[in-house]
Every structure is written in C-alpha cells, then in structure tokens.
C-alpha cells in the first residue's frame, strides 16, 4: 500500500529499481537508502528559493518586506531563528510557532487581512501554491546545523510545553486515538511506515528536526503545522485549526523535547 503511494511521487523510475530488492530485503532499509539518494537534490530547495525571494521583497497592501518581521532574534533576522521557536512574543502577547509568527507579520506589518494571510496554508499543486510553506522552507533552511534551543525556562513557553504534553496523551474520537497511540513505543510501524517514538528524546529529536519536509508522495513541502493537522485527521478528530493554541502547545512540547539536537530541515520524506 505504501509503495503504491510512493510511486506517484517524483523519481518513480529510480524507485522502481529499489522495489525489486525491497521486498526481498528489509523494505524499510531500502526506503532509507532511497531517501538518502534523494537527499542530495531535495526539491524543497525550490520552495526555499521562492521563500527567500518573498522574504526580501516588499509585499502586501503596505508594501513592507519581512525585513521588519521579528522572529525572535531581532527584525529581519532569520539565521538560527527557527531553532528557538516556538517562543513568547510580547508584542502579540502569545507563544507563537514559525507559521503563526509569519501570519502575524503579514497582518500587522504588511497589511494583509488574517483571511488573506491564511488563505492557502497548505499548497495543492502549482495552481494553489502556499506562500507560507515557501516562507517556512526558507526560514527553516537558515537554521540548518543550529542546535534546537527552545526557551523552556520562559514561563509562557513552559506552560504551553506542559499543555502540549497533556494533549499528546489525550485520547478521543471514535477510535480512542491519541498522538501516543502511534508515537509512544520504540520500533513500531504502521503498515510499513516506521513510527518515531516521540516520548523518547532521541525519537522526538530525529522527527522534529526533519520538518518541514518535501513529501515525495505529495510533491509538496509540508510544515509542522501540516504534520499535526494530518495526524489529527487520521486520529478521526475534527480539523485542527491552523495556528491554534493546541497546535502551538504540541509544537512547543515536541520542539522543546528536540532541544540540543541539530536542526536538519527541510528534509525529504515519503
């Protein structure tokens, strides 16, 4: 089932060569090799380039660039900013993740309405590209090699971390699923897909530091907001709202647990 989805993405020919041996040997090992082969030429670079252009050019009704946007390290500073998010922003009186902060800058500095700024949170092909995914790809690429350093001592962030931890274990819906149902044990997989154990530091670090990612199966760069949104869809929950408090609390919990690990996104994933 997974291999079928896989083949709809790019590099289907390259993959075909893997499939033959994949079933004979360990399929997950082969997928890891495939991922490695693609790592040299990650299509996420196209999103990064588009995001960088958007970052520097005047935008919106007020024709203001992101040079005025403070991601926590000062106006316009991008280098290393993602590795310290989420953080508390006094000007917004709120703990924000990257995507929420980008929307805040678009609304408060560039003059967009909230509705316009969040019109396409998740892209769908070239006709419905997401500016937020491109901007996130650019900003996160500027933290590559930087160790995660979310300020868990800061009381607002600390509170969100604790709320996010509770939410991680919150069972609900028709199927009784929580985040922990799939991400609470070592060495588990769903069908053939390996599942990170996010309750262990190593698992959380490896998973969190590789988002955003270019999803081969979707041909899109997906952000952490998307990751959470789509996990909850599969949990049979209602839809997680973009930039909602719960999304930021869960991000604070997982980003906080990734502290100390080198950020390595945008990555490439199935």
């Amino acid at each position, binding site marked *: 089932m997974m291999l079928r989805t896989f083949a709809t993405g790019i590099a289907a020919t390259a993959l075909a060569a893997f499939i033959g041996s994949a079933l004979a040997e360990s399929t997950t090992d082969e997928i890891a090799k495939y991922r490695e082969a693609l790592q040299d030429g990650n299509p996420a670079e196209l999103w990064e380039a588009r995001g960088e252009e958007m970052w520097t050019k005047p935008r919106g009704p007020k024709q203001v660039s992101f040079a005025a946007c403070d991601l926590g390290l000062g106006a316009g500073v991008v280098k290393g900013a993602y590795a310290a998010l989420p953080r508390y922003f006094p000007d917004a009186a709120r703990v924000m993740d990257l995507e929420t902060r980008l929307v805040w800058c678009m609304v408060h500095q560039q003059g967009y309405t909230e509705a316009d700024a969040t019109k396409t949170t998740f892209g769908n092909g070239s006709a419905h590209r997401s500016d937020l995914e491109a901007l996130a790809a650019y900003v996160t690429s500027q933290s590559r090699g930087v160790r995660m350093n979310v300020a868990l001592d800061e*009381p607002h962030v*600390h509170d969100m971390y604790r709320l996010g931890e509770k939410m991680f274990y919150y069972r609900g819906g028709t199927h*009784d699923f929580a985040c922990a149902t799939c991400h609470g044990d070592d060495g588990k997989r769903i069908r053939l897909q390996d599942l990170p154990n996010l309750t262990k530091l190593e698992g959380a670090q490896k998973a969190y530091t590789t988002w955003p990612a270019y999803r081969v199966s979707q041909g899109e760069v997906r952000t952490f907001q998307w990751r959470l949104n789509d996990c909850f*869809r599969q949990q049979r*929950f209602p839809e997680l709202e973009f930039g*909602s408090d*719960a999304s930021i609390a869960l991000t604070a919990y997982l980003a906080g647990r990734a502290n100390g690990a080198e950020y390595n996104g945008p990555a490439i994933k199935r």
Partner: protein
Amino acid sequence: MGMKVGARCIAGALMAIVAGGVMHGCASAPAEPDVTDRAAAMLKSSFKARGQATMDRLDQDETQRLCSEYAGRTLPASTAETIEKANLATIRYPADGKLVGDWKSGEKIAQSGQGFQYSDDPKKSAGANCYACHQLAPQELSYGTIGPSLYGFGKRRGFTDATRKYAWDKIYNAEAFAACSNMPRFGQHHILTEQQIRDVVALLVDPASPVNQ
C-alpha cells in the same frame, strides 16, 4: 525533559518560599489537574467540525479520560479493573447467536482504512484497518507492528467456541480485556456493523482462512 523542567520549578518554588520572595518563572505553573482541564479546554477551542468529524469527538468517555490521565505511567490495578469491567458490560451479541461470517469479506475489511476521517466518504462502509497494526494473512507483507501478530490465531488457540467468542469480544471492545489498549472499540463505537465483525472474526478463526494456514 518535562521531568527536568518540573523538578527545576519545584526547587525554585521551595527557594522562593524560603526566601519569602516572589517566585519567577514557575509562579504561574498550576497544579496537575488544572493542566489537564486547561489542555482539554484548549483542544476544544482549537478544532473545528469538518464533515463527519464533529466536535463531540473531543468529548472523552470515562475510559478515554482515565487512559489519558494515566498515559505514560503505570495504570493502578484497581483502575484497570474498573475500565475492563465497564467495557465488558458493553459487549452485545447477534440475536441469532452467529459469531462467524465470511473470511474473504473479513480480509477486505481488514485491508481497508477507510472511514470516520473527515476526508472519508461517510456513505462508504468503514474498514477495520487491521493490517495497519497487525500481521494476519502471511501473503500481506505490508503490515504494522503496533499490535501483536495474529497469524495462526485460530490454529494456535484451537477452533473452539471459546476462541470464536473471544475473537468477537476482543474486536467488539478491546478495553474489556486490556485496559487502555491501543485498539479501537469496533463494536461499542459502531465502527463496524454486526456482519462486518462476524467477517473479521471469520478471518481469525475459520480453519480455511489464510490466517490459519
């Protein structure tokens, strides 16, 4: 990490009490039950109903509430017993007493993950998605490992009435046997119809099923 932060806050609180000063950093850190309630409230204000996935999906029943509360910790034996007893009481049987259906239909149901997501067509019947977590028929290589392998289920346990009843009960409500199991309660939550449960039971217990070859 969470533990570390918590310990630091407690230490900070003690120091603040000793010093008689105002505590910074963790002053607003509330007691545990408050975090639980606030997390639930925050969840409810952060989702929106979409399609068949209505907001009441976030309302927990007692089993979900207890399993969330004790997640990541050892479930006290008395709580486990309470959960199992309450869930055992929900199990219903077909009026005709027939627990075993068609294993071929059961295999299709076991393969399908469709159903109950807001992206699913509510008019289509739901699957049980057994292969997402379990090995069943050995021909299917794409199986998950969240649950144990069920290959040889009937053969190992014996093709008896007791095995058939256990398969029905477990699919109907897994919480009756293992409190806070990861397995959905397919009967109690009406994920599967009576006939679908029969068919999945057949996949597990029919001597002709590939699961028992």
